[in-house]
């Protein structure tokens, strides 16, 4: 139960987040930061970009559009709107240490503990009115059908229109046209609703340029003396792979990350190189410390992969439809496994870890196929059970035992 002190803090916060003018004041803080850190390092760059995002979202100078993880952000940037990805923001809530508040709020309103905690936290933060108010919701059905119900729930809570883009599993010209036609309807509605004129050229150019840098970062991570620390750090940069892609922020961030990696060559390389599947627990936990303790480094992350072709501003909606359809490769077993095996080879990986998310049926339902295929090719797979946001499912001792056993297995290879 939420106590009266927490309730008071929540009421005050709710009051403050509705004061748009208050967030305009953050400009002063941003100006001060830019003066103090004239050449900001990677964490400082990320911090400054986050502050700017908070100001833009809560001061609402432009329409705020919420989207599901695999709805292409370039569409929203091109429309001149401010994108917000509730699933990513839920991770941030966990990192800040208060996921239990929205999770409890959702549970009090009948959203079961068995549902995905990213979605439950998003529902809870919406019920608490702490997330920035949306003007429109956009979601795809790709990868997980839970997203559909999640966005329908958000539309009901916020009483705003929601467009669901139905994405087939099949890869065919008809499927592509189906997705493109749905995007055409959305684009037309956004144009009339907000008076937006889509600037595809700018958004796509920024996105394509950013992707080239992400690919260069991938090449750097193939080198044995270059590693990101702590091991799962790249997943903290998720907003730059999704929410900011197609904006100058993402480009700036990845340029900084590339520079950071070039300047941080290791003296002693870690003994085990890992591919990381799905996401990770975002609350305070010992996972990364344990990985480090056992000499494991993550060299590639599934959610940081580039799964689409360069975007073409001459055929913007077809190009985005292709990107959306390609995202289904994360959930079609043959295609996902083929990609994982390719990463294992290219990044000279010794093993693969997937941190299962309690409420994620699509990923857990594939565990058997994944394990069978990777073992056949000689790559050990560790399936860790838990929850990415809900700490009630976390057990440090169990985590240690599993990682220790996995380490022994890799040592024996």
């Amino acid at each position, binding site marked *: 139960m939420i106590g009266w002190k927490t309730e008071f803090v929540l009421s005050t916060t709710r009051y403050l987040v509705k004061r748009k003018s208050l967030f305009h004041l953050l400009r002063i803080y941003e100006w001060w930061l830019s003066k103090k850190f004239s050449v900001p390092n990677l964490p400082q760059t990320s911090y400054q970009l986050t502050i700017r995002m908070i100001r833009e979202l809560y001061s609402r100078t432009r329409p705020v559009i919420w989207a599901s993880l695999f709805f292409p952000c370039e569409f929203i940037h091109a429309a001149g709107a401010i994108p917000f990805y509730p699933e990513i923001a839920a991770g941030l809530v966990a990192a800040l240490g208060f996921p239990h508040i929205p999770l409890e709020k959702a549970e009090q309103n009948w959203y079961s503990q*068995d549902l*995905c905690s990213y979605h439950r936290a998003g529902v809870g933060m919406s019920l608490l009115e702490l997330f920035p108010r949306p003007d429109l919701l956009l979601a795809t059905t790709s990868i997980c*059908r839970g997203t559909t119900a999640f966005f329908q729930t958000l539309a009901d809570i916020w009483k705003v229109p929601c467009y669901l883009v139905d994405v087939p599993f099949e890869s065919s010209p008809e499927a592509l046209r*189906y997705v493109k036609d749905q995007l055409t309807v959305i684009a037309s509605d956004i144009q009339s609703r907000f008076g937006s004129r889509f600037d595809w050229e700018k958004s796509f150019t920024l996105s394509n340029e950013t992707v080239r840098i992400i690919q260069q970062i991938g090449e750097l991570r193939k080198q044995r003396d270059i590693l990101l620390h702590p091991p799962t750090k790249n997943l903290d940069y998720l907003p730059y792979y999704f929410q900011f892609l197609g904006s100058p922020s993402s480009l700036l961030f990845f340029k900084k990350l590339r520079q950071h990696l070039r300047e941080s060559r290791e003296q002693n390389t870690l003994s085990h190189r890992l591919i990381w599947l799905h996401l990770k627990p975002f609350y305070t936990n010992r996972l990364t410390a344990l990985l480090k303790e056992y000499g494991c480094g993550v060299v590639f992350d599934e959610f940081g992969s580039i799964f689409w072709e360069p975007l073409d501003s001459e055929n913007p909606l077809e190009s985005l439809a292709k990107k959306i359809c390609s995202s289904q490769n994360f959930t079609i077993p043959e295609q996902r496994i083929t990609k994982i095996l390719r990463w294992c080879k290219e990044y000279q990986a010794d093993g693969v870890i997937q941190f299962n998310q309690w409420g994620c*049926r*699509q990923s*857990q339902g594939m*565990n058997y196929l994944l394990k069978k295929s990777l073992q056949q090719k000689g790559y050990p797979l560790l399936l860790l059970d838990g929850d990415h946001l809900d700490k009630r499912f976390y057990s440090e001792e169990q985590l240690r035992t599993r990682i220790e056993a996995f380490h022994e297995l890799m040592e024996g290879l």
Partner: protein
Amino acid sequence: MKVGYFCTYVPEELIQACGGQAHLLYPKYVSHNEATSYFPTSFCPLAKSLLANLLSERWKDIDFFIFGTGCDAGRRLYDVFTSLRSKVPSYFLEIPAIDTDQAITFYARNLNELAQYLLSIQGIPSIEYTVNLIASLITGYDIKKNFTDLFFKGKEYGDTFIKPIGFSDKRLKNNPEPIPILLIASHLFIHRIINVLEKRGFLVLDNSALGMRRYIFPDISYTVEDDSFMTLSRWYLKNKVPCPGHSPERRLSILNKTIFELDIQGIIYFYPKFCDQSLYDIAFLKKYLTIPLLPIEHDVSFSSLGQWETRIDAFREVLSR
């Protein structure tokens, strides 16, 4: 040819027009023993049970299986089954999650592809098929319209959808003033839970996947001039009673109509554990329905019956007041 399918969005008229016998498959023998190694603990009991039945060859007389995309578990059921039994003829039908005009057109195209596939297996010429489909649609329309009219007149209750022999009538004679309730459920244990509820003095209107969601098509229409595939697509995406997770507002409106016209006093929501669609649906209905709703969760067994009975009795007391 016997064609088995699991999802209520698969049109049986299409299978019949292709010369097949349509069988909606649901586990009569509920177990997950054979599926334990393939799905994790936190996974849909219906998918586990369907896989167990498929692997144990209890449905070996079925010649062809149609899987559909209602949910993530449904997709994984297809993935795992086809990887284990690659030689069993099976087909994955893309079922849109939405009911817009574009989705109806796309689904019509998918149904056409399924029909071509079924015809190619059986060697039935297209001309013969076109005539069959129209005949199947005319019959299908009459059946659906009839069921829908009877349902909203209160004449389809208990297990009449799944077993039209009149078991319910016998039980109801012992309860002259039964309390009308709506049972929302999936595919598992429908007979048994209806039996339990009727013994406790309820008149059960069946909104399970084997009942209302399969047979009731409010607002259904058809004329022979209509395109057959578009008709089927519209019937199943737009006219059928939606399943949880599909078109929540239309679903709510149909439930409200049912509650109003049949004087429903309460809802028992008997749902499979780990079913995301049901879990979201419960929260949605709790918010908008004005009559009491009792959620009861089940796994692959009926072993919690004692506990359920206590809750059902308490629920009956609430409704009696």
